[in-house]
Structure formats: structure tokens, C-alpha cells
């Protein structure tokens, strides 16, 4: 996917305040790209533009064929319908794609199993912990036949252990179906362990400061490696 010359801003009292000005970015299809930047730099806005949740003033978003079609979006919160069970929440998004209810339920259960929640399929979201709810939303996003995955800090607000279990749940599902993923975060170690490409961003108006490509396979990565220590250091200068 290519973003070319994107400009997005808000007009406040006749004054145009740019969040993104002539912003361009290339994302390799079938990879995970992490966008790392300070809070409020505009990375969430960028994600919302790609997800067609907000319009932009100028520029172009060019997708390759396999990225065309429905998108999966993981928000900071799980955003599950509180009146439905976990299973129903996942099954519901599959309705336009699978005519048979049996197929939908089987697919939903399959993905709930992958995030270790098959025993909780009949529970309501408010009967689960925050981490479990977010796992449901990961299962929902992957069960949905999205061609593009957009992640807006979905692992925030959780303790470290829960966070890693979610990152692993995500990577397990991703390895089976390597969808182009754009991942917004301000957590450097998480980005370095998850992404193929890490983009370091500036404050508003957001610009790319640096693009790091990580070739080391995910299983072999360690934050203690000199290579990763050096990479982390670049974010804290």
C-alpha cells in the first residue's frame, strides 16, 4: 500500500491546523508495519484515514489488489456488543460473508479457540476480564475476511504479561493469514518485536524521521540483543 501526499487537518476559527501535511508512506504488502511516535502526533488519525473512518483533504491511498476489500480494525478498546455473547459478537460480523449459520458459528468457534476462549463462547463480554475481551476482538478481526489489518494500540491499558499474551495471540493468527498490517503504538519494544518495518515519526505535523527494517525472524528476536538495544536507543534521543 502506498500513501501519497496525504494532507489532513482541522479548521478552527478560520485557521487550518494540519495534523498531516503532504505525508507519504510505503507499506510492503503482507507485512506488519509499526508506526511509532509521540502521543498526539497524528498516527491514530492516519490509521482512521486508511480505515475510511474520516475524510482527508488531499493525497491518495493506493492499495495493491490483495489489500482491496474489507478491513479489520482493532481499537484501543474491544468494542464488543454488551448484549450478545462472545460467540454471537464474532458470528455477527460474518453474516454478509457466510450464508449458513453453521459455517459462521464454526468459523467463530475456530478463531475463539485460537485465542483460547472457546470455553467462554457463551459468556457475555462484561463477564470477562479486559484482556479476554480484547482477545475476543482479535478473534473477531481475524475471523472477518479482512484484507488489511489496522491496529490502534490495541494492547494498551493492560499489564505487561497480558500484553505479551495478546501480542502472541495476534502473531499466531497473523502467521496463518499474513494480511498487510499497519500498527500504531508508542511502545518501542512491542513494535520492535512485532513488526517487519518500524517507522519513527515526528510530532505534528507528522513526518517520517526514520524507517527501520528488521530482518531477524520474530522467534529469534530479543530485546537484549545489541542490535535491538541500538535500535531502541534511537527512539530515546
Amino acid at each position, binding site marked *: 500500500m502506498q500513501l501519497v501526499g496525504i494532507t489532513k487537518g482541522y479548521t478552527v476559527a478560520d485557521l487550518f491546523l494540519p495534523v498531516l501535511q503532504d505525508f507519504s508512506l510505503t507499506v510492503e504488502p503482507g507485512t506488519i508495519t509499526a508506526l511509532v511516535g509521540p502521543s498526539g502526533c497524528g498516527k491514530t488519525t492516519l490509521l482512521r484515514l486508511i480505515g475510511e473512518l474520516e475524510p482527508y483533504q488531499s493525497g491518495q491511498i493506493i492499495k495493491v489488489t490483495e489489500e482491496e476489500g474489507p478491513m479489520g480494525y482493532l481499537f484501543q478498546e474491544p468494542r464488543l456488543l454488551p448484549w450478545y455473547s462472545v460467540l454471537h459478537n464474532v458470528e455477527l*460480523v460474518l453474516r454478509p460473508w457466510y450464508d449458513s449459520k453453521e459455517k459462521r458459528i464454526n468459523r467463530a468457534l475456530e478463531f475463539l479457540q485460537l485465542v483460547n476462549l472457546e470455553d467462554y463462547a457463551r459468556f457475555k463480554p462484561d463477564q470477562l476480564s479486559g484482556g479476554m475481551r480484547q482477545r475476543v476482538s482479535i478473534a473477531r478481526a481475524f475471523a472477518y475476511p479482512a484484507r488489511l489489518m489496522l491496529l490502534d494500540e490495541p494492547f494498551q491499558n493492560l499489564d505487561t504479561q497480558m500484553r505479551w499474551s495478546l501480542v502472541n495471540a495476534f502473531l499466531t493468527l497473523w502467521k496463518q493469514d499474513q494480511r498487510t498490517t499497519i500498527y500504531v503504538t508508542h511502545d518501542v519494544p512491542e513494535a520492535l518485536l512485532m513488526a517487519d518495518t518500524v517507522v519513527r515519526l515526528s510530532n505534528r505535523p507528522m513526518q517520517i524521521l526514520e524507517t527501520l527494517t528488521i530482518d531477524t525472524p520474530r522467534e529469534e528476536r530479543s530485546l537484549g540483543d545489541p542490535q535491538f538495544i541500538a535500535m531502541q536507543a534511537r527512539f530515546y534521543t
Partner: protein
Amino acid sequence: MNRSTWITKLITALSVIILLGIWQGGAIWLDAAVILPSPTTTLGALATLVRHKPFSLNIITTVGRALQSFLLIFMVGSFFGILAGYSKKVHAFLVPVLVICKATPVMSVILLAFIWFSSGTVPLFSAFLMGFPVMFVQVEQGVQLISPRLREMTEVYGFSPVRRLVHLVIPSMLPSFITGAKASLSMVWKVVIAAEVLTVPRYGVGSRMQLAQVHLETAEVLAWTLIAIALTALGDLLFQAMLSLPKYILTLRNRNRKVELCN
């Protein structure tokens, strides 16, 4: 039933007994059936009323009026409530109507309506005017309770408008619909009977109450009041039963499912 529910029930029963005791005591002390007849006299009057011929017709007419105006309130209040919830312009347009409806004394609405309409229509019209703002405000607030975040989620996952309505809008607004319906229903009974008292249409609980009062049949007035209370309570009970129906059906369905799984 556990111990604490027993105790609460006992306390409620005790309260009823004390109220009846005060009534009986007052009747004995005043010793004038015209001012305050005893509970037994009132029950006697009630028994006579029930045996009297157009009894059921009076009740049916009042219930009919209450239900008609309630249905009208429910439909019109929901319709405009939803519109105003989504559009600030509609809200602004309806504010004066609402203020007038809320601030006008029930009695002046009834008196004015009596000038404009026939006596049978007055209860309907007055109840509608009084109940409409209650339903409207609840539904309008209900629209604002629909989570914008969940709405965005339905956009991302490509929900059609119908699917969004069924799975997000209606479940989000259900509590508001229920609260609005409950509050307007209990208001409707009171206004319908008050309007009947003032306008005395041919049939109706309020008309009978008024006639009894004119003839200083205090026991009969009280008997009709008991009937009015019973009607309101019955209405509430039916409403509650209606609300628990879907849950009941769901448990039945789940039970059947479990049986299927076991086989």
C-alpha cells in the same frame, strides 16, 4: 425464597395492615360514613358496584381510553424522540412544544380540551398531552446513549443500516423505551380518570366517581378509587410480565437446546 425476602414481604404486609388500621380507626373516631366510611362499608359498596349492570362497561371504557392514549404516546413519542435525538434542528423545533406540555397544569388542559372536544375525547387528548413529553424525553436521551464507538465498529465491519438498527440501535435504546413507557403508562391512568371526573362522559371510572361524589356516596367514591388503584397496579403487572416474556422464551429455548445436546 430466602429469609431476607420473607422479611421484606412481612414488612410490606405490616404496612398494609397499619394503613387499614388507621383507616378503620379514623372511621370509628369520626363516626360519619359521609366523611369517611369504614373499610368494610367501602368493600360492601365495591361489591354492590361490581354487581351493578354497566360496571364492566365503565371499566372497559376507561381501560380503552388509557390504552389508546398510551399507544398514541408510545408511537408519537418514539417517533419524535428518535428524530430529535438525531437532529438538533428537530430538537430545537420541539423544545417550545415540550415546555408547554410540561408546564401546563393538567386541569387547564382538561378544561380547554372540554371546550374543543366531546367529553369522550377529552381524556384521550389530555392524557396524550401529559404523557407525550415523558416518552419523548426518554427516547431522545436513548438515542444519545448509543455508543459512538460501537457505531464506528459497525461501520468498520460493514453493517448494513438494517443490521445496525437491529443489533446496535434497538438494544441500546431498549432501556429508554421501557422507562418511558412505564412512566407514561402510570401517568395516563391518572390523567384519564381526572379528565373523566371533570367532563363526565357517559361511561368511565371517573364519571362514576364524579356522580357518586355529587350524591355524597363517599363509600362509592372510595370503591371506585380502589378500582382505579387496582387498574394501575394491574397495568404495571401486565407490563412487567410483557418485559420478562422474551427472557422466559430464551430460557425455554436454551433448555430445549441443552436437551438436544444431551441426546
